[in-house]
């Protein structure tokens, strides 16, 4: 769910640019990598079921290195939330309300997210649970309505740019799927830790299939050339749909998408706050909350000049950062636990 909300809007465009007709295949590759990532996180979490990554990183790497790593993760989450906020405002400014200054949206969103963070992770998860069925339902309706305009010949020729370009294009979706790395910080909060693997894989597969459908839908409707040029390809798909009197469905997309964005920012914001609070063993999270909110409002406008910048960052720089934190570090930590043979029981 965290993954779907932003990915829906951006992935078709970014992947299509690189892999063109075979873009949907990259999503499937990403899906596979996502499952591997989840297993990695799961086995790591199983070794320290009562600890979060910041705590067992200190056990494995020593205090200083562990703290540095934790701080790295905080920055990583901050980057995600800043990116999401930036995309969110770009999106609204480009499509809905061009005259409203971006920080108005960002402030509004941060207020909502802060309220959610104050209420705690359980509430955030419940909100997510409430939205998810609506999300899937509306997507299903949209896809069903788009069937009329699909042209399957747009999917051919298959693999004409070679296998490598498909793998290359899958880096972005992999980075999105990899965001399940938040689980390493939430592991101790999960009630049925045994079910994480099963449910997680189920979730990833569902999200992957949904994404594949969406990519296929945008590709077949618009063709690879257009899709590659579009910044928010899925939105244009929704705009394009005209079914008798039902039209202008992009508003459905936008509003449902806003709710997904709120949840995602809330999760990241929660992780930033709680990790910082725990790292410095602070008494109250009030000031951390406030400071992070300000950062989240200022940074999106400071770091990127234009939506083009964001696109560039997402395509070229982001995958390497994301993969480091999502795959590499958990992998290395897991390797370290195996080598050091840390006994599981001791840290319960």
């Amino acid at each position: 769910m965290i993954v779907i909300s932003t990915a829906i809007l951006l992935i078709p465009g970014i992947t299509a640019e690189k892999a063109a007709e075979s873009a949907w295949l990259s999503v499937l590759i990403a899906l596979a990598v996502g499952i591997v990532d989840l297993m990695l996180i799961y086995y790591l979490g199983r070794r320290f079921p009562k600890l979060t990554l910041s705590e067992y990183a200190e056990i494995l790497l020593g205090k200083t290195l562990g703290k540095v790593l934790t701080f790295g993760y905080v920055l990583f989450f901050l980057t995600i939330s800043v990116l999401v906020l930036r995309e969110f405002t770009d999106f609204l400014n480009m499509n809905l309300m061009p005259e409203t200054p971006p920080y108005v949206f960002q402030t509004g969103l941060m207020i909502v997210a802060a309220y959610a963070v104050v209420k705690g992770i359980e509430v955030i998860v419940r909100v997510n649970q409430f939205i998810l069925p609506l999300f899937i339902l509306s997507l299903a309706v949209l896809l069903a309505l788009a069937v009329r305009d699909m042209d399957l010949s747009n999917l051919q020729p298959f693999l004409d740019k070679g296998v490598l370009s498909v793998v290359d294009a899958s880096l972005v979706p992999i980075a999105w799927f990899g965001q399940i790395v938040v689980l390493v910080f939430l592991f101790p909060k999960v009630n049925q830790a045994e079910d994480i693997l099963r449910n997680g894989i189920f979730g990833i597969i569902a999200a992957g299939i949904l994404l594949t459908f969406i990519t296929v839908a945008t590709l077949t409707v618009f063709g690879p050339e257009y899709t590659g040029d579009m910044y928010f390809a899925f939105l244009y798909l929704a705009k394009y749909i005209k079914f008798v009197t039902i039209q202008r469905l992009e508003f459905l997309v936008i509003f449902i998408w806003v709710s997904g964005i709120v949840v995602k920012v809330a999760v990241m914001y929660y992780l930033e706050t709680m990790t910082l609070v725990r790292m410095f063993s602070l008494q109250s999270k009030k000031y951390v909350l406030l400071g992070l909110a300000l950062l989240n409002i200022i940074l999106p406008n400071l770091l990127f000049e234009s939506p083009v910048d964001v696109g560039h960052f997402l395509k070229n720089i982001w995958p390497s950062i994301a993969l480091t934190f999502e795959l590499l570090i958990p992998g290395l930590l897991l390797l370290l636990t195996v080598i050091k043979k840390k006994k599981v029981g001791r840290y319960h």
Partner: protein
Amino acid sequence: MFINRLTKTLKSWTNKAPEPTSAPGPPKKQPLSRNYEDNIKKLQQLFANCADVQFHPFQINLEEPVRAFIIYATTITDNQVISDSILKTLLEETRKLQQLTKGGNANLLQIIQDSLLNLTETSTVSNLDEVERKVFAGNAVLIIDGSSSALAAGVRGGENRSIVESDTEPGVRGPKDGFIESIDTNMSLIRRRLKTSRLKLETLEVGELTHTKIAVCYIQGIVNEQLLQEVKQRIGRIKTDSILEGSYIEELIMDEQYSLFPLVQYTERPDKVTASLLEGRIAILVDNSPMPLLIPATFITMLQAAEDYYHGSVFATFTRILRLIALNLALLLPSVTVAVFSFHQELLPTHLVSSVAGTRQGLPLPIALEILVIEFTFELLREAGIRLPKTIGQAISTVGGLVIGQAAVNAGLVSPISVIVVATTAIASFSIPNYDAGYALRILRFMLILLASFLGGVGIMFGLMIILIHLCSLRSFGVPYLIPFAPLSLGEIKDILVRAPWWAMSKRPKSFRTVNPTRQKDNQGPSKPKYRRKRS
């Protein structure tokens, strides 16, 4: 945060107030004495200036006459019963009494209680406090010379409203009886529907001055014990001098103090209470209140009416979906209108744009303000209508709704579109069965209109997310407020979005953590008869 601080200051102010001095008169826990004069003096002092308390001294004609008196509150007792069953017996059945007291009249009171009075509800009391309570609970208290205890006999009477159809929750099909102000009658209405010893009615008294009788009702073996303990504990914590309505209890035991949403449900219908008990909920009956509380309450219970279960399942399902749409309309219609008209005009179909633009030509107020003004006028009308006598209330609605509405449109102050929007919203909000949920919607509606006028659709989304987060964080006695949706349990939807036929609902809802989930045997659905008539 601000509210918390405010209440803290308020609390510190109220704490500074001096402790209420103890009531004048003799100390309460004082035991009765053996001395007749002494007792009469103390009691007369206790009941001084209570015009409704009657002292009736008389003599019991034994071999040695014994002085006695009875005290009762004339207004809440049945004088006929007092004179027929107590006075007449004690004054006229002297021979029987003499026979009974042959072995000495040391425990005369006991003899009277056991063998003479033909009243079912008798008990002995031994101190002034108890005498006072018994008198005001509708007992006649008999005190005789030489006995340090008194005999209380229940002779309750006085006026009660008769059982009539509920005003607040009327229905077409189903039982028509409604609760009244007497807790005993209310308990009888529930007991009549649940003829089992597993229906428990635990009574207790709350309120140092009102001594309000409260009954905690539940069905043993269905209700979750932990929930029951929690409820009892919370009621036990209440220390107050008065309970005038169930809502006092409600506010004192609620989970979240400043939520707009009702975390405790109330109803006037005995059938609804019974059905709730059968789902593992707990009902709290409060004396002098015709509206028992039902806990725990979830969001969806606010959208259900008792009648859903008396109509066919298809029709009930239709009604429920209708209500769900009404809920959304009542919450969102004005704000969405504001957002569309002021930010997203492109959403309107082209032919509508021109006609709407035509009606809005030359209007003095922007749409947001216009809708706010009409909403406000409507709230005024509603409030005025509630407080006024029914006959004038109708005049108000005519003047307010028809005359002012029509005139405002004709005068070019507001556009007909906004009037239509506000009126539709009002009708939609009336179709929600729970009145308190309606309150919440009214306030949130204003909030959403403001947000929509600032940020359009995005503002509405922000507002909705805040509401959703709030709803997700609410719990009613440990039960998540949005339960069948978040946390999601698909199996429960059969009694939420749809109303499945009874044979398909063989399990109780899991929401209230019942310990006995099975309601009935599976597969009791109707099936075609196996024998067919042979063609003749």
